[in-house]
């Protein structure tokens, strides 16, 4: 009898812990431990909290609850692949691993398994070419867009002329950090500036040599492609050598509160790119507070709401949820499959009116995906840190990238991938 009761209890626990068959399963390959946890935690919290909001406020999406399956990757590529293998069964709809290294490993796997891979602002840039990368989507912006927007901003600052200027690229010595080199090299040829490459090894705790080099080279501008502690150390070292912060621009992964706070007033005036708006002045945060934080259902401590990386995780969840809605509309069923969701991603359009309706007016750029275009418009904002007020402020509107330079690069890189992997182009 006792054994039967125990078996019944175990079965009940198993059933309650498993999602109902019709739930929408969204794995979250997050990192809450390890050297990159300070960036991974707010992103994962924002991602989870947005889906919790939809479940609590709207009863899910199209009447189906979203179930998050979180798996810890510690920003480690091998662990990320293990997490993918462990969670892909049972109806996983989409992956968003927040790691370029993991993304590169998952691109062939998700294509083989028929699961969309959504990598906003990171991952393989040339995956923007939907003709080759059927299962990958990286709108609204990617790394090459970011590099181009940074240069366009500097062009604006210099009356359209960067000839003779010296720009240093301080980058994380990894697949991620090396992404912008090709674009910046092309742009340096086009605009006549000198590009100085300054790599920093993982994790970037010690950067004395790099900043002595920058002090000696005296670049007019420094562009940074960093992540984790590397960002904070770089900003501190820049302050140490009295490098003018207004001439120091980070990519959007080098532009969170974590990166600037340790340097205190030294970080004042530091700039970074931004894929989306900043601050708490968006109605969606009131709903998150009411339905998620105050209801005790927050993914983390609830103290990250409105921070840059929390907002970015939330934005990724928003785009996925809109793609789910689109997929439900296309397929005519609420309980969609991963293949349905791919169609949803490919036909997704998010207008400014829709963003306002979702409580995020003027937060992100409107975009419309197509079979060939999985990359979106690629525009980005520039934000600047006010160390006294401890807040970011937007200093530009969305700046469009230089597609004349980027499109051939994307085509060339994706064509090479198609050739290596015997992929026939779609969308003809």
């Amino acid at each position, binding site marked *: 009898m006792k054994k039967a009761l125990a078996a019944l209890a175990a079965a009940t626990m198993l059933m309650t812990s498993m999602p109902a068959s019709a739930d929408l399963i969204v794995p979250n390959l997050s990192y809450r431990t390890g050297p990159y946890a300070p960036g991974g935690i707010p992103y994962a919290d924002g991602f989870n909290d947005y889906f919790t909001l939809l479940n609590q406020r709207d009863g899910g999406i199209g009447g189906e609850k979203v179930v998050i399956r979180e798996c810890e990757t510690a920003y480690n590529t091998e662990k990320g692949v293990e997490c993918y293998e462990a969670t892909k069964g049972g109806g996983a709809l989409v992956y968003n691993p927040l790691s370029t290294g993991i993304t590169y490993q998952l691109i062939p796997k998700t294509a083989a398994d028929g699961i969309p891979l959504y990598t906003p602002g990171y991952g393989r840039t040339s995956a923007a070419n939907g003709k080759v990368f059927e299962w990958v989507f990286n709108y609204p912006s990617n790394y090459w867009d970011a590099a181009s927007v940074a240069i366009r901003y500097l062009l604006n600052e210099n009356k359209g002329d960067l000839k003779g200027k010296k720009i240093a690229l301080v980058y994380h*010595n990894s697949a991620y950090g090396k992404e912008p080199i090709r674009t910046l090299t092309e742009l340096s040829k086009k605009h006549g500036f000198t590009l100085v490459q*300054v790599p920093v090894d993982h994790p970037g705790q010690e950067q004395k040599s790099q900043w002595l080099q920058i002090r000696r080279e005296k670049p007019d501008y420094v562009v940074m492609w960093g992540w984790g502690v590397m960002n904070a150390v770089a900003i501190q070292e820049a302050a140490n050598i009295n490098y003018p912060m207004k001439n120091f621009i980070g990519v959007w992964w080098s532009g969170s509160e974590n990166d600037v706070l340790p340097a205190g007033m030294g970080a004042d005036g530091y700039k970074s790119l931004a894929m989306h708006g900043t601050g708490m002045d968006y109605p969606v945060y009131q709903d998150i507070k009411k339905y998620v934080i105050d209801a005790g259902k927050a993914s983390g401590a609830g103290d990250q709401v409105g921070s840059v990386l929390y907002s970015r995780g939330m934005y990724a969840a928003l785009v996925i949820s809109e793609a789910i809605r689109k997929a439900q509309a296309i397929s005519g069923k609420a309980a969609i499959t991963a293949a349905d969701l791919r169609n949803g991603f490919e036909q997704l359009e998010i207008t400014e009116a829709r963003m306002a309706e979702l409580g995020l007016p003027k937060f992100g750029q409107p975009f419309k995906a197509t079979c060939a275009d999985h990359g979106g418009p690629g525009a980005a904002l520039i934000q600047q840190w006010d160390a006294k007020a401890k807040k970011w402020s937007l200093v530009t509107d969305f700046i469009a990238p230089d597609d004349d330079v980027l499109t051939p690069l994307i085509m060339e890189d994706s064509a090479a991938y198609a050739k290596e992997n015997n992929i026939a182009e779609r969308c003809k």
Partner: protein
Amino acid sequence: MPETVFYALEVMLNGLMAGIMYALVALGFVLIFKASGIFNYAQGVLALFAALTLVGIMEGQVPFAHLINAIFGTSFHTFGFKVPALVAILITAAIMTLLAVLVERYILKHLVNQEPIILFMATIGLAYFLEGFGDVMWGSDLKSLDVGLPKGIDETIESLTSDWFGYGFFIDRLDIVAAIVAALLVAALTLFSQYSKQGRALRAVADDHQAALSVGISLRFIWVLVWSIAGIVALVAGIMWGSKSGVQFSLSLIALKALPVLMLGGFTSIPGAIVGGLIIGMGEKLFEFLIGPLVGGATENWFAYVLALVFLVFRPQGLFGERIIERV
């Protein structure tokens, strides 16, 4: 002299300064290895834990707040007051001492007479435990650490060298403080081990455990003592590195910078840790300057180990390590 020569000198000086920062971490390893023959894998995590605790106390953070709030449905995060840096440092030092007592009582005591590899494995377990415990206790978010140490370029040195050589040298004021602190630390440790009763007992245990036990020295007390000192050294390293980059998990990885220092300086010598740190710091920075541009840069992480390995080939016990002669 051409500017390149001055730049090379500047790189060398900054390498020496960076080396002192590495030596601060290496000192903790040396202390424990010297007294007990244990390679303490957890030394980097001790620095992280000490720095997390220091910031937590300074900010008046409620320890285990996430856990408490999750269990009781409360929303406590801070006590609502801040603690002055000096008081917080003293409280943290006391906590590191308490940690030493707990490590001795719950780990080391049960492993007396075990093989060194078993003790090493125990410290690996301790490192992972402390990492998670620190996260649960204080949270994994990045914390700013400001105990009032000066940071940034020393303008006096820059202007003086500019007047003398026509080239203003960059020296970070935090590095100067670190050098002074390291010198004081080494002096204090030397005085302690030479002139105090406990210090002499510590040296006796380091020389011969069995002989020390036979004259009534308590091995357990010595272990608590040495782990306490290593904990306080870890606190100093945590303050210096944490002031630079904020306090977060990466701080524990500074141990990776200390390993080549130990290989080079020897695992049993306090001056060895300092000299090893200086050689590694200077060597890696000069290599990055001279050879880095030819091989794409970012050479420092691996070059430090190559340099240490080269020294090992000629002097396996390190520059200042004790030569081990075992007779059959």
